[in-house]
């Protein structure tokens, strides 16, 4: 069974619907015992880092998620779930986060430009992700596939090697992270059509081993 972490961070039923469509048994839960028993964990979320961290701590989910990542369970972070995996986020006047991956989450600079033209913030819509190496969770994607993003902050891992997928929006930022049994994406695979569903299907079959 796949556990989808429920920590009151936005509407996470879309992840559940996508897994149901793929025929994968899943459960939306905030029960520590259920997260420990799950074969895999999806850690989604939409919203702000400050409130998300407060909710995670209140439910003791912060320690459970860190323990399960350390224990080697396959874990997939999505959007805000990805961001709070880092040490801290610039959102809400610097929020201390889970610290599972060394690095931080930064706000897009106010003066973000492309060819001189000021870019809109949030980065909202479809954009390409350039994958730097192969990985079981990101295999079988069509050349030039695009994914749906909605965010004003982006992950900046200390070690760029962990950034497996990179996206251009005024700057080049890390859109996908792969580190041992953890994969994490800034975009929404559950809202990214067939390529997004492919990533979710790959994750459901992945044992947690990295190709590297």
């Amino acid at each position, binding site marked *: 069974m796949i556990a989808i972490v429920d920590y009151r961070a*936005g*509407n996470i*039923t*879309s992840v559940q*619907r*996508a897994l*149901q*469509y793929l025929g994968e048994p899943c459960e939306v839960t905030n029960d520590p015992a259920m997260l420990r028993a799950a074969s895999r964990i999806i850690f989604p979320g*939409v*919203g*702000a880092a400050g409130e998300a961290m407060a909710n995670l701590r209140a439910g003791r989910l912060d320690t459970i998620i860190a323990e399960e990542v350390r224990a080697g369970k396959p874990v997939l972070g999505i959007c805000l779930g990805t961001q709070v995996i880092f040490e801290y986020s610039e959102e809400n006047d610097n929020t201390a986060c889970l610290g599972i991956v060394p690095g931080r989450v930064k706000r897009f600079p106010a003066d973000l430009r*492309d060819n001189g033209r*000021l*870019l*809109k*913030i*949030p*980065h*909202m*819509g*479809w*954009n390409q992700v350039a994958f730097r190496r192969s990985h079981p969770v990101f295999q079988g994607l*069509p*050349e*030039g*596939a*695009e994914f*749906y993003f*909605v965010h004003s902050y982006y992950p900046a891992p200390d070690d760029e090697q962990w950034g497996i997928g990179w996206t*251009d*929006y005024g700057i080049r930022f890390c859109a996908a992270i792969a580190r041992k049994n953890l994969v994490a994406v800034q975009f929404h695979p*559950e*809202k*990214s*059509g*067939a*390529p*997004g*569903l492919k990533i979710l299907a790959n994750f459901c079959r992945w044992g947690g081993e990295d190709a590297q």
Partner: protein
Amino acid sequence: MLSKRIIPCLDVRDGKLTKGIKFKGNVDIGDPVDAAREYYEQGADEIVFYDITASSEGRDIMIDVVRRVAETIFIPFSVGGGIRTVEDMRRVILAGAEKISVNSEAVNNPPLIGEGARAFGSQCVVLGMDVKKVVKSPKTPSGYEVVIHGGRKYTGIDALWWAKKAEELGVGEICLNSIDADGTQEGYEIELTSLIATGVRIPVIASGGAGEPEHLADVLTRGHADAALIASMVHYRTHTIPEIKSYLDAQGVKTRMQW
């Protein structure tokens, strides 16, 4: 770089499309879920539903439509029409819509925008704006006025002022409809779109007047729109989404070409 989005708009009343949509083999589709699936498969980047239902029974039917759409397509979609409270928003979002849009409701009750943004995040709240060209005056210095109730009621509110105000109140996106261009199929209102799209920092979806692929190219370049809403030109199969995207690609306008 970010792709420009192509967004079909479906009008729904009592759970049925108000105009049939012609698809494969010229079959007329009256079910919004089937229509959404067709457009999803054709490469729509997002879908907008506009619910013109008047009755509360009709609203319950719409919630069921939203739920079935969410189980069928895996791209973002928004629902607008008659959303007056945060509770109305919550029902639609929990049923599976990515975004809700408010139009007349936000003009009549501006705090609704902030309440929605705080409850669900700015990215969930779209401002629908219906706008008419007027003579420039101290009240409407931009020369465009916000109208409500489907274009029947002038508000005396300047369109550019309202767009900026709504951004400040917390909307994540604006869907800008030109009442003058709407239904003409003669092209979007470029001047208006450019004014609003460069006047705010949030994405702007251009609406009203699309008839030919050239119109989309124009509004996505000269009009500085981030996305283009389309209706009749695809509903009646005069054009298809892949054809529009190929045209835009040839014109150097980047859209999502793989789906």
